[in-house]
């Protein structure tokens, strides 16, 4: 019976090709759209988290809700060592935050002092590339500072100027010192640009008398998948209830929800696409079976049992569907792979966090293969059951009379 089904497929090449074309086209197109949805989503998140926030942040308990100068991570180096021991963690960077008044000549402004480890920060967030004027901080503390570009304007300061900072240190003493401006930065966030005063971490620790302490560790993983799980693992490995490990979905909730909303919109469209593919398959299978009433009539007349005809029809459809899926999978994986490397050129590039986005990328995700495969296979099978039953029940004499 399987042989007959197979031969039937080749007997009517055009019909087979047409049916396959629908299944194949539907498969490839829905695979590309899923690949695009997954790929561009990861790409945007990757850009976002690499920009400044990091993928996972470690703080002293409750720092995110109620930041305070005194909620520091004490022995951050050993915390970082433990974090780096967790699989998938690629890099980390420490940060110290405080507020102060900065002045250049007679201009004064309130600033947020951010102490960073220049090398680690660059590794984690590519900070070096966000310097728009001058240069990046040198690895060793040299009393250097980088200013956000809004702050530089506010203070009328340029590269080479000396700034004075005035604040209060952790021990209650007055913290003040002089730093030379070496660079001006733009991280794409207006508030940060207007207030950020980046010091070398060691300089900042000296200024605020916080030896060996930081407020925040940002952690980057090898990829953006399952970061909530990774954060959980880190939390457990640390065995320290005083520390709080949060993935970006929690500390950047607004952005996360905006992305979720966007993704949901995309899934509605994907559903529509899958629905149309299913209807296309339905229509094709239905037509190709209905137009063969006469043929089934002949088969019945020769003594084929109804169940065998039913089986034959199902076999035929299955073979066609499987072959279309195989060819479609090869092609769509190829296409998704190609655009995963080269990207879709955007009609107009847009800026995201100081970075220009001119291409969006697809990805070869497992579901970009199995979702379309399930859709095509199941719709063709479900759809072919009714015509198959009909074909099996055909009254031979009547069927053969028809043209």
């Amino acid at each position, binding site marked *: 019976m399987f042989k007959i089904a197979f031969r039937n497929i080749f007997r009517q090449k055009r019909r087979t090709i*047409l049916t396959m074309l629908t299944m194949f086209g539907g498969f490839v197109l829905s695979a590309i759209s899923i690949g695009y949805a997954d790929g561009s989503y990861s790409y945007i998140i990757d850009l976002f988290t690499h920009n400044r926030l990091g993928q996972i942040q470690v703080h002293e308990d409750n720092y995110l809700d109620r930041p305070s100068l005194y909620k520091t991570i004490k022995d951050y180096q050993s915390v970082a060592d433990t974090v780096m021991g967790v699989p998938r963690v690629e890099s980390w960077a420490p940060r110290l935050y405080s507020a102060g008044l900065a002045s250049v000549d007679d201009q004064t402004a309130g600033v947020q002092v951010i102490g960073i480890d220049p090398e680690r920060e660059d590794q984690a967030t590519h900070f070096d590339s966000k310097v728009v004027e001058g240069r990046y901080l040198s690895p060793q503390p040299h009393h250097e500072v980088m200013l956000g570009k809004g702050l530089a304007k506010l203070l009328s300061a340029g590269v080479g100027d000396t700034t004075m900072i005035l604040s209060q240190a952790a021990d209650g003493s007055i913290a003040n010192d002089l730093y030379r401006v070496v660079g001006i930065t733009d991280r794409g966030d207006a508030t940060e640009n207007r207030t950020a005063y980046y010091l070398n971490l060691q300089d900042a620790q000296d200024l605020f008398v916080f030896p060996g302490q930081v407020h925040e560790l940002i952690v980057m993983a090898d990829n953006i998948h399952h970061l909530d799980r990774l954060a959980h693992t880190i939390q457990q490995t640390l065995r320290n209830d005083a520390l709080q490990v949060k993935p970006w979905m929690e500390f950047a909730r607004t952005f996360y929800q905006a992305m979720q909303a966007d993704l949901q919109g995309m899934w509605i469209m994907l559903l529509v696409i899958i629905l149309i593919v299913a209807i296309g398959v339905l*229509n094709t299978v239905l*037509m190709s079976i209905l137009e063969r009433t006469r043929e089934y009539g002949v088969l019945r007349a020769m003594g084929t049992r109804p169940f065998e005809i039913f089986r034959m029809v199902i076999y035929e459809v299955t073979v066609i569907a499987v072959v279309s899926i195989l060819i479609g999978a090869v092609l769509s994986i190829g296409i998704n792979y190609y655009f995963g490397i080269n990207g879709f050129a955007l009609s107009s590039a*847009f800026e995201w966090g100081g970075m220009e986005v001119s291409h969006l990328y697809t990805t070869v995700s497992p579901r970009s293969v199995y979702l379309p495969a399930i859709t095509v296979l199941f719709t063709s099978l479900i759809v072919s059951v009714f015509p198959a039953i009909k074909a099996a029940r055909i009254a031979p004499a009547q069927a053969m009379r028809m043209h």
Partner: protein
Amino acid sequence: MGIFIKLAWRNMFRNKRRTLLASLAIGVGLAALIFTDALVVGMEDNMIESATSTYLGEGEIHRAGYQETQKVEQTINNLDTVVSELKASPVVRAFTERLMSFGMVTSPSNVQSVSIVGIDPESEAQLSMVDEAITEGSYFTGSNPRNILIGDGLADILSVGLNDRIVVTLAEAHTGELVQEMFRISGIFRFGVKEMDRGMGFIRLPKARSMLGLPGAAHEIAIQFVAGEHIGRKKNAPFWTKFSQDGNLAEGWTELQPQLASMLQYTQFSTYLMGIILFGVVIFGIINTLFMSLHERMFEFGVLRAVGTRPFEMGKLIIYEAACLSVISILVGLILGYIITYIMTLTGINYTGIEFAGVTFRNMIYPVLRLRQFIEYPFWVFVFTTITGIYPAWYAAKMQPAEAMRKSF
């Protein structure tokens, strides 16, 4: 010629089941295109509204350079002229003046540096959602000049509640001297945006003006345009150049909030791509349906040829049939598309419980019906269906009648 159209039309109804199947397949595709378009328009509207109606406005006017430095002395130049011109402008639906300064808020237990914004309660209420975001107490009622609204995050930090008193310290604009005044918390708001809930306080505009020593001044005018104009997104609209004079700068929300604009652009590109793919799927469906329904009738065409129909006429008939089929499908699609989309515009589509400000993001997306959806898409479906008919037409025209009739056995 007329006879072929008639014949083609009649052929449609000869095999009703086939026509029904084909027109359903194509019609559902068309309905999907219409629905998706409506959904995209609805999503965009929702996004823009979320971005602009909370606080930002669709556009803002400042002194040029104020945005970057927020220096308190950089107020809008020629405010009276700007205001009267805004009042006269036909595209402006509402606008409001604001005066802003960084200051310190002191409660018995804590100190916090915040942005103090002087607002005009009446016009502000029409433009932003400060009034809707009040969760405790009330928006400025009565005329007590010492009322202040603060966010719930700030109230938490200061450990104060409704009707408590707090001291606001501001620096006078020209002399830099510190001015302190006592205020009573008359309302607590929650936008759901951390920076706003923690770092903002609203007082009445005249009070802010007198404290800062800036009579009749404003730092910012937020503008809402009349519906459907989308001036906020049009960088080249004459509105912006008109109000960017005398050292002032008028900008739309896409420039005020570049991150959101990027997000919108990303969404637009994605939907555009998905739209193309969807169209591709629909086209596949059309090609397939048409080929199938013509292919199974080769015997019939053979007979037609055998009785003397000329090849050219044969082709014409098939193209006419394709056109007739597309007309029927379009009718089916239009009706389906309209009904589905219309139902959705009433019920809305539940979009994740986006709490991003109980006010900011609405939880429901309502597709938006536009006339253009019912003209453009049917047009393209008609064109593609008819074009697709060319191949079978050509095939049928050049076939050998005898062979065609033999094949079907």
